[in-house]
């Protein structure tokens, strides 16, 4: 079963997305921030990481960098509800940091499932 590490600080959103992914047949490992996600990934490298970008403690870009440090070949989907870092769009920066795909929040089930399929297929 394909495993997905799902990182989001928003409990409600994370629970919703975890439910959607499970229903779609994925094994979901939730993490509520970047630090927790890094620890989990170090213990168990999942097939895919879906991470939010703006989070307290350790934000998404740093999380991506650390996870890629553990496994440079990791497949990552970055998602964000918007926001900027200086003049740069987080999602664009996330791509630079190594995210395979980026997706705007909110999204429909179809959108996210499509993105996952695409990320895993690449």
């Amino acid at each position, binding site marked *: 079963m394909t495993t997905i590490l799902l990182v989001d600080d*928003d409990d*409600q959103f994370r629970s919703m997305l975890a439910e959607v992914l499970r229903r779609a047949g994925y094994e979901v490992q939730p993490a509520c921030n970047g630090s927790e996600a890094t620890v989990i990934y170090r213990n168990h490298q999942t097939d895919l990481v879906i991470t939010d970008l703006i989070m307290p403690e350790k934000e998404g870009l740093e999380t991506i960098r650390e996870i890629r440090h553990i496994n440079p070949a990791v497949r990552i989907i970055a998602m*964000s509800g918007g926001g900027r870092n200086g003049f740069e769009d987080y999602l664009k920066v996330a791509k630079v940091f190594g995210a395979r795909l980026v997706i705007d929040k909110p999204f*429909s089930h179809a959108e996210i499932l499509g993105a996952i399929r695409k990320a895993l297929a690449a």
Partner: protein
Amino acid sequence: MATSGVALLLACAAFVAYDQVSTRRWLASDLTSQARMVATSVEASIAFNDRDSARDILSSLHIDQDIAQAYICMQTGERFAEYSRSGEVYQQAEDEQLIETRFVNGNLRATQPVILDGEMLGTVSLVSSVEAHLATRLRKQIITVIVVVLGSLLVAFLISARLQRVISGPILHLADTARAVSTQKDFSIRAASQRRDETGTLIDGFNEMLEQIQARDQQLQQRNNSLQSEIEKRRSIERALRESEERYRALIAESSEAIWRLELEHPLATTIPEEEQITHFFQHGYLAECNDVMARIYDRDCADEMVGTRLAAMMVPSEEHSLESLRAFIRSEYRLIDKEMHRTDQDGNDRYFLYNLSGIVENNHLVRAWGIHREITERKQAGAMQAKLEAQLRQAQKMEAIGTLAGGIAHDFNNILGAIIGYTELAALDLAEEAPSRANLAEVLKAGNRAKALVRQILSFSRQEEHERKPVQLQPVIEEALKLLRATLPSTIEIRATLDPRSSTILGDPTQIHQVMMNLGTNASHAMSEHGGTLEVKLTSIDVDSIFAQTHADLEPGRYLRLMVSDTGCGIDNSALDRIFEPFFTTKAPGAGTGLGLAVVHGVVKRHQGAISVYSEQGKGTTFNVYLPVHKVEDQQVVDEPKAIVIGNGERILFVDDEAPLAALGKSMLERLGYRVTAHTDSLQALNTFSAHANEFDLVITDQTMPSLSGAELAKLMLKIRPDLPVILATGYSTTINPEKAKSIGIRELLLKPNTTQTLGEAIRRALGPNGKNN
């Protein structure tokens, strides 16, 4: 002296003459007496004929030296006896017997009768040689006279010499002094006086007189000096006055401000009621002085043409603002500072002035007033421009604030929306196909998606970062957007697109331009949602000249691409027009629009150094013009030479636009093209001008949308007056009046605003025909 001599001589001569005469008389009398005595003596001798005795008696006469002869004649004439001193015989004379005494031949002869007893016996005659006696006496007398005269003269000389010392000397001294005084004009000179007699008194008197004259002279001198200094003072005052006058004239003449003086034929009593004062102003006020600047404000060439103008001719007494200004003047004690005045000149240009008016009040009467007008038209226009810029700045700040806020909340908002949308989908999945809640969940999803769209808008609005700019060919981008619009707009809306395939490229972000087109198109479709209509899209390139650039603060002279998006929808009312680019401003029903579409368009256009303008007519439609600067490098490569501008040949054009800046702009453009232009902002006024000078205009260009009389109505009336009149109707909105209708009225050209000098020039040429003046 000579006079005395002559007088004396004359007196002496008179005396001598008198003496001679009296001596003769005396001698005659004496001789007569002697002759009588002798006659008496010889009576006897004769009686007795005693000649000897007679002779003796006669001889006794020798005692008298003077008697030269004596003789006695008888009655018979016989000489009885005779005596002669010298012995010579006396010659007998015929008249010797006449009894008389008379001078004969220098001798005195006295003849007396000898009478005895009453009978005359004869005569006795004595002859005296008196001449010698008289001569001797005369000689003596002459000598005496000479001596006397000489002596008298000598004495007189001596006396006069003495007298001169006593009298003439001081008088001559006095005369010399007087002469010296008169020749030297020196009244301090005094005559010397040592005598205490009359001359002394005279000299004292003279000196006293000099004293007085000197005092008077000094007084005169002093008076003269003070007069002189007075004159000098006056001259210098006059000079100062003249200089001041010159300065004042120069100041007035060369001032860039209008300076003028209002005089009242009769001073105005400041105590009479206000309305009477106003009447007085209009009745008696006139312009007594002004400079050329003032004259030009009132459409005259120079001050001379203006001076003398009645106040009533300068401000219309019936107009409320005229009365208001005068009331203000009276109420502020005849002093107005920085009052604003508006005037439309003969060319229809609006001009604004600040004026000061200062009245001169003497004894409770206003006699005159000085006024200064300072033109502030430019400042005013600049002020309007600045206000516009400030409004734009405020809007930009507002947008930025909203952007920042939006960026901040979007993240959380999207998480929330994500949860809502996601769980709704999950819930729907769990429901059976026929479950009634599915429809409700579908509504939740729809609302969620609307919220999502809103947040997207907010975010795109907040994305202020510099997008990657690259040369973009606009035509495909617009076409792409139109394709999407065609797919989404209802079939009641027709889309007409004219995209110049040669349109140049801009430097920009195609995604953003795409969004601009989409937003404008969506807005247009909303405006036409009720009745359908036409969405017209045009893409053309234009040259913005300096005049055209003035119409929009964001435009600079240069080459631009113009994207025109026009609809035939409900239009935007004027009060809303100013706010349409504000974020969250919407005229749509709540929930129908985000209020961000145009704000986003505005932001994108601004980020592309472009400009956007809007023209709308309620019930007719709206036109947006987006100007985007052509990419410079591309611009240089463009071989598409700008067409030569068609210039005029001094034809007279009547230009009508109710918006003063646009009227001024049109006038300026047309004048640049070589036409003579009369501009009006009021269509009724324009009609008046035209009816008064119908044949003086070669062409009329009028705006369509104007209060009181629309362009088409104005054109109809003008064409009634002059059916051959070429008229160009300018409209900011393409479907306001259709070409067929325009043609039926007799309008030669329809022109879509805004216009460049080139489009205007070409339209005029078409309307006037190839032969120029009034074909």
